[in-house]
C-alpha cells in the first residue's frame, strides 16, 4: 500500500496531463477529416461498439462533428488545467466518445484504447495542481500524486499483458515458433496490397527469410507478459519502455501499422521525469505571454 502511495512531484503528474492531453488534441484534430468521412458513411456501415451502443443508428454528420469539436475544446481546457474537476472527466468522456464513434464502422481499432484509459485515470487524479492556469491549491493532494502515475503505468502494463495472454490462449505455445506471426504479417500486407495501401518496408524481405519470426515472436511475448516490470520503476521500467517502443517500431516496419501513442513515447510519459522538459516549455510560454 505504501508502495502505491509513495509520493511523486505534483509537477510530474501535471506534465503527464499536459503531454497526454496535448497528444489527444493533436490526434483528434488530425483525424477530423477521417472522422468526417466515416461519420458520413451512413447507416448500413454503422456497427456500434462500447458506449455508442446507446445509439439506435449513426448521428447526423453535423452532430457527430459538433461532438468532436466539443471534445477538442475540452481538451484545450484539460491541457490548460482550467476547471479541472469538471473539465477532466468531461474531456475523458469526449475522447472516449470520439474514438469510440470513429471505431463504430465495422472495424474495431486497437490503437486508441490505452489513450482512453489514460485519459480516464487522469480525469480523476489531482493532475492540475501544477502547470495550470487555475490557481494552485494551498496544500498538496491528500493521497499524493504518485498513485496516479502508478495507475497510468499499471494500465499500460495491463493492456500489454492482455495482448500476450490472448496470444497464448489463441495460439498456445505454438505461437512462439514464429509461423503465426509470419502468417499474420503476410496476410496483413496482402490486405494492404489489394486494398491500395502501402506495404510495410521490411515485410517482403523477412517473409522471404522467415527464420527471424521465431525471434520476433519470443521477444514480443516476453515484452507483453513482462510488462508489469514497468511498475518496479527506475531503470528496469525505462528499459521495458525502450523495448515496447522498439516493438512498435518493428510493427511499423513489418506491418505498416502505426500505434502512434506509444511510438511518440507519450504512452510511457508516466515512467519518465517529464516535469523538467515540460516545465521549461511552460516557463518559456509564460514569459512570452507576459511580454
Amino acid at each position, binding site marked *: 500500500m505504501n508502495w502505491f502511495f509513495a509520493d511523486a512531484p505534483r509537477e510530474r503528474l501535471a506534465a503527464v496531463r499536459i503531454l497526454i492531453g496535448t497528444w489527444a488534441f493533436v490526434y483528434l484534430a488530425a483525424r477530423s477529416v477521417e472522422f468526417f468521412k466515416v461519420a458520413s458513411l451512413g447507416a448500413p*456501415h454503422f456497427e456500434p461498439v462500447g458506449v455508442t451502443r446507446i445509439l439506435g443508428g449513426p448521428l447526423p454528420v453535423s452532430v457527430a462533428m459538433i461532438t468532436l469539436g466539443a471534445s477538442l475544446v475540452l481538451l484545450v481546457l484539460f491541457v490548460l488545467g482550467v476547471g479541472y474537476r469538471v473539465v477532466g472527466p468531461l474531456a475523458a468522456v469526449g475522447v472516449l466518445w470520439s474514438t*469510440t464513434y470513429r*471505431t463504430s464502422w465495422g472495424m474495431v481499432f486497437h490503437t486508441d*484504447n490505452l489513450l482512453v484509459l489514460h485519459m480516464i485515470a487522469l480525469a480523476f487524479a489531482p493532475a492540475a495542481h501544477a502547470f495550470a492556469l487555475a490557481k494552485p491549491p494551498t496544500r498538496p493532494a491528500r493521497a499524493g500524486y504518485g498513485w496516479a502515475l502508478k495507475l497510468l503505468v499499471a494500465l499500460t502494463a495491463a493492456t500489454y499483458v*492482455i495482448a500476450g495472454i490472448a496470444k497464448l490462449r*489463441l*495460439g498456445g505455445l505454438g505461437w512462439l515458433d514464429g509461423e503465426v506471426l509470419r*502468417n499474420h504479417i503476410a496476410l496483413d500486407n496482402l490486405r494492404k*496490397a489489394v486494398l*491500395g495501401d502501402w506495404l510495410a518496408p521490411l515485410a517482403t524481405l523477412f517473409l522471404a527469410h522467415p527464420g527471424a519470426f521465431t525471434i520476433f515472436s519470443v521477444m514480443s511475448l516476453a515484452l507483453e507478459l513482462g510488462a508489469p516490470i514497468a511498475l518496479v520503476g527506475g531503470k528496469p521500467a525505462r528499459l521495458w519502455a525502450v523495448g515496447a517502443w522498439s516493438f512498435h517500431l518493428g510493427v511499423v516496419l513489418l506491418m505498416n501499422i502505426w500505434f502512434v501513442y506509444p511510438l511518440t513515447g507519450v504512452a510511457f510519459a508516466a515512467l519518465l521525469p517529464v516535469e523538467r522538459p515540460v516545465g521549461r516549455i511552460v516557463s518559456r510560454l509564460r514569459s512570452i505571454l507576459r511580454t
Partner: protein
Amino acid sequence: MAHDPAVTRARIAAGVFSVGLLVATLSPLARDPKARKSDGYPLSTFPMFAEKRATKLTITYALGDAPSGARTLTPALVGTGEVLQARAMFETALAGGPRRIAELCAQIATRVAADGDYADVTAIRIVTGTHDAVDYLIDGKHGPEKLRGQCEVKR
C-alpha cells in the same frame, strides 16, 4: 500524516478508483477472445495477431480498369482513410447483396472520376479474390478473382 483520517479517506478513494479501473481494464480476460464479437472498446481482448491463420486469404476489393491493366484503388477512393475500414465496407456491401455492391461501386466511380491520378481508369470492378499471401507478395502470383459488380467511371 498517514494517520490523518482525511489522508486515509483520500487514499481509500484513490485506491478504490484505481482498482476499479484496473479490474475493468483486465475484465476482457474473462471473455473468450476466439468468440466473434467478444472484442470491445476501449476494454479489448486484444486478439490481433494471436490466432493461427493460414496464408490463404479471401477478400473483397475494388480494381480500376485502365488500358495498362487493373489498378488497385486507395482506401480514400472507397470512402475512408483506413485500409481495414475499407475492407469492412466491402464486406458489409457484399453481405447486403448486389444492390449494395452497385451503390458502393458507383460511389467509388464518382471519387475516381474526380481524382486526376486515376484519369486512365474507365471502369470499376468489385471482386472477391483468393490469394496465398506469401505467393502474392514474394512471387507476384495472383489467385482467382470472382466478379461481384462493376460500373463505369463517368467523366
